[in-house]
């Protein structure tokens, strides 16, 4: 068991992740775009991505030191703000699918000392895509011409690793 005095400090992961966006164009063909070291930012605030609905694959390699891997210490991966569903993969192993706040999962059992590969697959709703369809004149989505607002999308963070030690009380 880890003493409360020995709990390591929380780690904030860098805000720049490699991001691959995967969706479908108007003809149903798969479309993708890769962005290297993308800042964590709401897709709907980007001129290029505001109409995007689909999956965003975020990936990052993180160095984990031995003190974070002590037996009895949980390490909660906290994704912060996410829109809307997040699938968490660590070292190519699927850990969990997170649907609502808090977007948190204990990743300690899946980590090793040294470099660890994190991949978060975030899927937003279809709304922003339908706004695009409506504003480009598609008669099926004319209702979105009257209500043009975008839903926040993607992983906004901050992404942190939060150590947790459980201490037995007398």
């Amino acid at each position, binding site marked *: 068991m880890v003493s409360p*005095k020995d*709990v390591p400090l929380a780690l904030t992961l860098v805000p720049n992740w490699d991001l691959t966006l995967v969706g479908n164009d108007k003809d149903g063909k798969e479309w993708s775009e890769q962005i290297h070291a993308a800042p964590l930012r709401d897709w709907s605030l980007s001129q290029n991505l505001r109409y995007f609905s689909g999956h965003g694959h975020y990936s990052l390699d993180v160095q984990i030191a031995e003190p974070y891997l002590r037996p009895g210490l949980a390490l909660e991966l906290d994704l912060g703000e996410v829109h809307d569903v997040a699938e968490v993969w660590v070292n190519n192993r699927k850990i969990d699918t997170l649907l609502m*706040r808090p977007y948190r999962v204990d990743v300690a059992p899946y980590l090793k000392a040294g470099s660890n590969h994190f991949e978060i697959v975030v899927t937003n709703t279809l709304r922003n895509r339908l706004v695009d369809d409506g504003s480009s004149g598609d008669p099926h989505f004319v209702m979105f011409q009257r209500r043009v607002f975008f839903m926040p999308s993607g992983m906004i963070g901050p992404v942190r690793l939060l150590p947790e030690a459980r201490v037995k*009380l007398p």
Partner: protein
Amino acid sequence: MARYESCQHVANTNMARKDLPKSAVAEAPVYRSENGSVTLDIFLNPYGSELIGLAESPEGEHVVRTSFRSVERTADGVFGVATEPGTYHTEFNDGKK
């Protein structure tokens, strides 16, 4: 992190917290009961929520004050959750520290 305080006027009450993402109900082992009034501290993350259930039952051993972020009761006992290095304090309803 915001701190909210809820006060319910009920006697001989056990508190239960519902973890919505996991759909699990867990006993809330930290509360204060005085003169028929029960006070429960609730710590919410931004946009966080908790569903508090109240059920009448004999009052058991519980924590009344703690500096741990949270306290959990399991089959193995009562545990404080430490999230940063330091010294933590806990006080039970029988005065034990």
